[in-house]
């Protein structure tokens, strides 16, 4: 029966997750080699983000010919020119199905996010890397993780804690603004700080209600007890968040509360609408990081079945990848590539906004790493070997950038494995079966 089948996977995921341990204490991990510090003397933390786009690439116009530094930019990634030296591109890395079915637009990203192959579309056999990292470094800020998307669809996220355990993305710029910069936001550069008595009261009431709820002894089964425990963990998170708002924040000269966003955008995935939402939410994420509201974030540009549309063209991107014939002269799907190029423009602008934001002696991007990937290599045939991946940022001096790495068909999980270790997660290996990574991608390590 589907029910017991799926729950089996949930337990497996839990067991796989228990192998993960957290490494060095925060302050030691995040002092970079040069000891760059903020004006206050506090060390600059290293942040982690993800960026996802659906439907892969047209390999012959996406993969640079040259490996190493100063790689060329074929036409489908030409938009990366202004940020090429901040970005690594990873090609010819492998994700395998390990004898399980290739679930179209699903297996590939699940492997690259949690290291294991799902059995079916309800299966999430582990937790995503951002969750592991957020649990390790995210508690020092009001938001352990910010999950956002540019599609406007609350189902579009690639952040999860196991089966049925997707995180919940913010889907509108106005709502994201209210969350981060609403009335509870404490300006770190304000001369005066007074703990808001309303937040004190709110926190006190929440604590009391949690304690009362915990006394109840419901007749729950094993899995429902786990779910109830999750609920209390979530409420304790809220309590911690309120506690953050009651502390005087460290001064952060670069942090400026952005102008309020109130406009609600219409629903739909018209490419220009997606780009607009993406731009506004990127601006908010940049400032959320600069204002130390979060150290971990996820941005979904388009989902894995991306049906991004171009007005007047009767098919969406996903349908196009299957039905469009390759241009006999150019040798690729022209319209499909048009959509991939829009994705790469948004990816480049995402990187550039962090790169242009000064922090310490460098930029915000210098003190972070963003992990970007898709769900397919060539969407037309659902190939998952060689799914394109990127990183951006130097992770506080731990990573080199501006390099093209050919993975030589080694597991793609080596990249999230490497990035977790860079972020201080103590791991000797990561992933399951043929997708198990045991070696770093040394070419990018300082």
């Amino acid at each position: 029966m589907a029910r017991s089948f799926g729950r089996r996977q949930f337990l497996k995921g839990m067991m796989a997750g228990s192998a993960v341990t957290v490494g060095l204490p925060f302050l030691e991990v995040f002092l970079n080699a040069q000891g760059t510090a903020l004006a206050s003397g506090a060390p600059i933390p290293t942040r982690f983000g993800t960026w996802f786009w659906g439907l892969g690439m047209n390999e012959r116009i996406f993969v640079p010919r040259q490996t190493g530094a100063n790689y060329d930019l074929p036409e489908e990634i030409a938009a990366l020119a202004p940020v090429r030296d901040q970005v690594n591109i990873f090609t010819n890395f492998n994700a395998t199905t390990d004898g399980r079915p290739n679930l179209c637009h699903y297996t590939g990203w699940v492997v690259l996010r949690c290291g294991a192959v799902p059995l079916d579309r309800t299966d999430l056999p582990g937790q995503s890397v951002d969750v592991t990292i957020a649990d390790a470094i995210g508690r020092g800020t009001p938001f352990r993780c910010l999950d956002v998307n540019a599609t406007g669809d609350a189902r579009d996220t690639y952040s999860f804690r196991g089966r049925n355990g997707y995180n919940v993305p913010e889907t509108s710029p106005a709502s994201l603004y209210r969350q981060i910069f609403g009335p509870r936001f404490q300006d770190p550069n304000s001369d005066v700080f007074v703990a808001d008595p309303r937040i004190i009261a709110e926190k006190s009431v929440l604590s009391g209600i949690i304690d009362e709820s915990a006394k109840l002894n419901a007749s729950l089964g094993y899995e429902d007890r786990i779910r109830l425990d999750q609920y209390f963990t979530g409420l304790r998170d809220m309590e911690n968040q309120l506690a953050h708002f009651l502390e005087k924040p460290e001064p952060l000269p670069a942090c400026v509360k952005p102008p309020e966003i109130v406009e609600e955008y219409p629903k739909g995935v018209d490419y220009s609408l997606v780009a607009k939402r993406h731009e506004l939410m990127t601006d908010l994420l940049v400032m959320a990081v600069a204002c130390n509201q979060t150290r971990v974030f996820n941005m979904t540009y388009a989902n894995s079945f991306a049906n991004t549309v171009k007005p007047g063209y009767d098919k969406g991107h996903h349908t196009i990848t299957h039905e469009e014939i390759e241009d006999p002269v150019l040798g690729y799907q022209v319209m499909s590539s048009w959509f991939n190029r829009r994705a790469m423009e948004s990816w480049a602008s995402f990187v550039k906004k962090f790169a242009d934001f000064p922090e310490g002696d460098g930029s915000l991007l210098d003190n972070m790493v963003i992990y970007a990937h898709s769900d397919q290599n060539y969407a037309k045939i659902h190939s998952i070997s060689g799914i394109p991946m990127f990183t951006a940022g130097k992770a506080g001096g731990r990573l080199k950038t501006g390099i093209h790495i050919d993975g030589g068909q080694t597991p793609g999980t080596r990249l999230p494995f490497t990035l977790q270790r860079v972020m201080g997660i103590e791991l000797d290996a990561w992933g399951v079966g043929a997708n198990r990574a045991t070696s770093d991608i040394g070419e990018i390590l300082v």
Partner: protein
Amino acid sequence: MGAGSKLTIAVVVAAAIGVAGYLGYQRTAEPAPHAGPPTARIITQGQYANTIAYIFGEDIQTPPQFPPVSRVEGLLALGAAEASLTPGVVERFYRYGKQVADQVMAPPRRAYVVPCGPADPGAADAACARQFITTVGRLLYRRALTDSEADTYVRLAGESADSLGDFHEGLRFVLSGMLASPSFVLITDRLADDPGAPGAARLDAYSRASRLSFFLWNSAPDERLLRAAESGVLDSREGVETEVARMISSPRLRHALRGFFADMLHFDEFENLAKDNLIYPAYGPGVSGDAAEQMLRMITRHLVEEQGDYRDLFTTTHTYMSQSLGAVYQLPVNPENAFVPYEFPDHSGRAGLLSHVGFLSLHSHPGRSSPTRRGEGVRESLLCQPVPLPPPNVDFSNFEDPAGEFKTARERLVRHSSDAACANCHRITDPIGLGLENFDGAGQYRARENGALIDASGDLDGIPFDGALSLGEAVKKNPATTACLVERLFAYGVSRPMDKEDRPVLDYFERRFADTGYRIPALMRRIALSEAFFAVGQPVAAEAATASLH
């Protein structure tokens, strides 16, 4: 309350309501029920909104979209019993609770929501706070607050009121906290000893009240149903009959049907439905919401007001029309009325659920129709027949059309039948969807596609049709149509997926459904009064859950 007094009340109530209903209840005909494990399900958006509206007023704004859950055997309601409660999910419920509490405690509403006036509005008032907290807490938690809860909440409200110098602020924080409590957000089956079977357990009375109320009203129990649970009325069959009769005759039954059909027909997908404005300029931003509402109104009128045969939903010409829908249906509509009753004329080519703009546009692409998606919608949502997923290595070269010679969807899709890997699934879906090809991706009527006359003929499991009208007749006559409805409705009511052990009772419900001429309120009554509806086994222990690994 002791068992003796419960029994006394039960006897008195049984005598008071008479025995006619009891004799009419054909208990012997129901097969032995299959008991599923108790569940804890996340309150749905509809249940949340209906509960808040009942307690605090219809005009309180609640969020239109909740954190998504997976669809399990066709229903989000079953996914809500399995979904993990990630920090992000809990944060949303905390956020929603604050939004509701802010509205409830804003003047002037608080003056009539709080049943007493504080002695000093700038300070704590324990007696008044207790009155509000115990009254509202009982309705939110679907049970009386424990003494410890009541004492703590009153104390917390008092401390906040004193520190902020505002009595209502204290209540606002406590209300916000209660709305974030798992006692409100998780609808949890609780067990009690079964006096009729020593050593066995059954749903306690409050849990039975909740099960009835969420099934028949898509909302938490009202004051009277909670009293019935507390007084022992729900311990007797007669007491349950009385309450079920009351609930089914209430206008709130419509909420239940709206909630159920919105779930079964995937209405959550309207949240993100948009059409290409260049291709379908009539399908503006307000259309998808109205298209969903049109179907829900049509369904509830047919099934409740007209007490209609469920199967006639696929052929009836009665519906509603709004101004924005008029543009898509190409009709003039009185702009004064948001929705007005409307009858599809013969020449429209429309009748029944499948020819509504909502169904047609939901199961289409943003810029064109999709016979495959429409066929899949009929198979999966209405006939409970899962359609296999496409294989990953499809060779699309057969379908490429460089010269643009395929004018119609049928010409494009007929190519699928030439490839065995595709044909196996597409022959399940496409013939149904091709019957609806006289409607484009927005649901607008068309006789031709790219200049070619559309052929909308086909057959559904052996019954031939030609166009939407006769396709509706074919769905109506398909035995899976009613079997599917019964299965989905019962699973929805007990909040768990069906097992093969449920088959006998489902067959029983199906026969009774037929006996009543496929009247859904009668079926809901039958389900609510069945032994199977309240049957519940022991929770699954860790050992058993782990054992199922092997």
